[in-house]
């Protein structure tokens, strides 16, 4: 009995730091943001009063918010789709045995280890209309005749940002998927091959279904990450031109820290949080439903 009590005490002592850290670093700020989102708080004007749902009502009619939500979703869906497909291709490649594989695996990761702000600055130079590499290359192969202002063009700007993001984070997707590939026992593919399955059949019938959990994790991680994209776009375009690259995170930043509307800014932040929550539930739901659909009847308990 006393042994159990002291054991429980020890367990509590071990849990305490973690619990404390979560409370102080996650729970308290979260509650504070929720509290702020129901207030009208503008320190510059000495305004700080309860506002009920005012901020959220305003949010509904705020076209800039909805435009930012649209940009964010577009960015996330397009970037993540490309990253996962490219990442899968790279993962399959570096999963093979060949000479210098270690070197290639390390090289693939380089974009991922460079800090985002640094890569964004780099891409800013690549996209520079006058001195940039992009225009130079495209002009050399005669794809364009005059310099294109990639980041100043309302159509190209968001796609330029997507390309920069794909370059940077595809290695991360590849790494996660490589781990998934490594966990698939090789004898399954061997057995299939003995049964006469071709390369494509092995890939679609064995590799892909078994990779599903890893794919789900990759899509989820990458989606949540790109849904809160801030640094790369902030450096590249600052949200312009004409707000075509303004994401929810950038809008939140501008409202919170440039115009100092703490209440409304918190409401936007909270809505972003809710949206990414819903999105991740949808992704997980889709992932597990398709997993159930493909599971063979033998697997059923």
């Amino acid at each position, binding site marked *: 009995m006393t042994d159990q009590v002291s054991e429980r005490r020890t367990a509590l002592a071990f849990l305490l730091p973690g619990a404390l850290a979560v409370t102080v670093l996650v729970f308290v700020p979260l509650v504070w943001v929720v509290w702020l989102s129901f207030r*009208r708080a*503008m*320190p*510059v*004007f*000495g*305004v700080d009063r309860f506002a009920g749902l005012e901020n959220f009502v305003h949010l509904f009619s705020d076209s*800039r918010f909805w435009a930012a939500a649209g940009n964010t979703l577009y960015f996330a869906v397009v970037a993540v789709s490309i990253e996962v497909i490219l990442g899968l291709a790279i993962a399959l490649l570096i999963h093979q045995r060949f000479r210098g594989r270690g070197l290639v695996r390390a090289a693939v990761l380089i974009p991922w280890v460079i800090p985002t702000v640094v890569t964004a600055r780099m891409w800013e130079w690549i*996209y*520079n*209309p*006058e*001195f940039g590499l992009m225009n130079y290359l495209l002009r050399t192969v005669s794809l364009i005749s005059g*310099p*294109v*202002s*990639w*980041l*100043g*063009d*309302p159509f190209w*700007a968001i796609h330029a940002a997507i390309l920069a993001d794909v370059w940077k984070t595809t290695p991360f997707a590849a790494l996660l998927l490589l781990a998934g590939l490594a966990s698939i026992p090789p004898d399954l593919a061997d057995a299939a091959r003995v049964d006469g399955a071709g390369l494509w059949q092995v890939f679609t019938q064995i590799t892909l279904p078994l990779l599903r959990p890893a794919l789900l994790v990759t899509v989820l991680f990458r989606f949540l990450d790109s849904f809160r994209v801030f640094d790369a776009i902030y450096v590249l*375009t*600052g*949200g*312009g*031109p*004409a*707000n*075509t690259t*303004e994401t929810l995170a950038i809008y939140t930043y*501008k409202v919170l*820290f*440039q*115009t*100092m*509307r703490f209440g409304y800014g918190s409401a936007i932040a909270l809505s972003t949080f809710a949206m990414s929550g819903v999105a991740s539930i949808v992704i997980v739901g889709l992932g597990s439903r398709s997993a159930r659909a493909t599971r063979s009847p033998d697997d059923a308990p």
Partner: protein
Amino acid sequence: MFKLKRFVPVALLSTVALAACDGPQTRPTQVTIVFRHGKVPGGPNLLRELLDRFENESGIRVVDETLPASTDIQHQYFITTLEGGRSDLDVVSMDVIWVPEFSRAGWLLPLSERVPGAARTLFFRAPIDACTFAGDLYGVPWYVDAGVLYYRKDILEAYGMGIPESYPELAGQVRRVLAREPTLYGFLWQGKQYEGLVCCALEVLASFGGSVVSKGRVTIASPEAREAFRFMREMVASGMSPPLVTTADEEATRLVFGSGRAVFLRNWLYAWSLFEREGSPVRGKVGVAPIPPGPSGTGGSTLGGWQLGIARQSSHPDQAWALIEFLTRPDSQARLARTVGYRPSRRSLYDDAALIRDIPVLPQLVGSIDRAHPRPVTALYPALSQILQPEISAIITGVKGVDEALEDARRELQLVLDEMACDP
């Protein structure tokens, strides 16, 4: 806090008492003040040298701290520090657009009594106006900046053209040059969606006789403003300003003009010394002129520059004031003009023969600074700018028509003004 406040007079008294004893060996308790400012071009020791001199003169110790280079981040830093009421901040260096905001929030001490009317007239008028909020002065102009028009002397001479007096005239000159030399760029300015775009747009707007807000009413959709913004769009659409301007900030345009690829450039005063630097392809070929005042004749530069103020939470306002007085003194300003390249905020220095000998461009700048306009002097400025930036960007990139964008901007601006009017 209270203990500290009570302690201060005691400390001051004891300083005086010690000084009165005049013991040659006893060093009085020194007061230390904290001065936070932006990055000093050419290195922090250029400013430190001046602060050392102040320390020797006054016996006040100054701790100075350089903040990150980005203005936005400095703004954010000051807001959190001033709002949080941290006591380790006495002298604040402020961008010209922050003064009304900080004053409205009650974060600065009024300086009206320390700077009487006569003393104010020694400074340029625009920065004094920008530092005046609700009838009180909250900052002393430290150094000024203003938008100017850089032009290629050699090209204008070759075509027998003078300095443009109006934007349409400038456009005509560009058209003439580009017809013969299509590889050159015409007129470069800052069109990225950020504060710099608002600065450029306000200059065009003023030259066409328009304004953003006038006497508490939003005037951004006036016929004059429509004409001004139609002109801006036309510059981009017709190729008189290359597509690169829609993503360009100051440095991006400075580099292109500095490599000799363009005829005109709108930029701040800092660019001059870089064009005249040894090895620069445009050295000796660049002229600097005021922003074209026409067609309506009311145009002028957007005012920039930095002001010094005293944080309300300062426990040593008198010592903080001593530092501000010292740094804005003519000899200190002349020194910083020579070492750092800061443009003095005192008008008399632009007639100072010794200073002109070292910085020959000074007399050419005085007209631009004299005619500079502060950006709308209101605590709401950050919100106004946030509304204007995407709408102007939409105009110049053709995402929205001029009328539509200005109507959207007008509605949004009016909303913000009304909202503030009902929230006391």
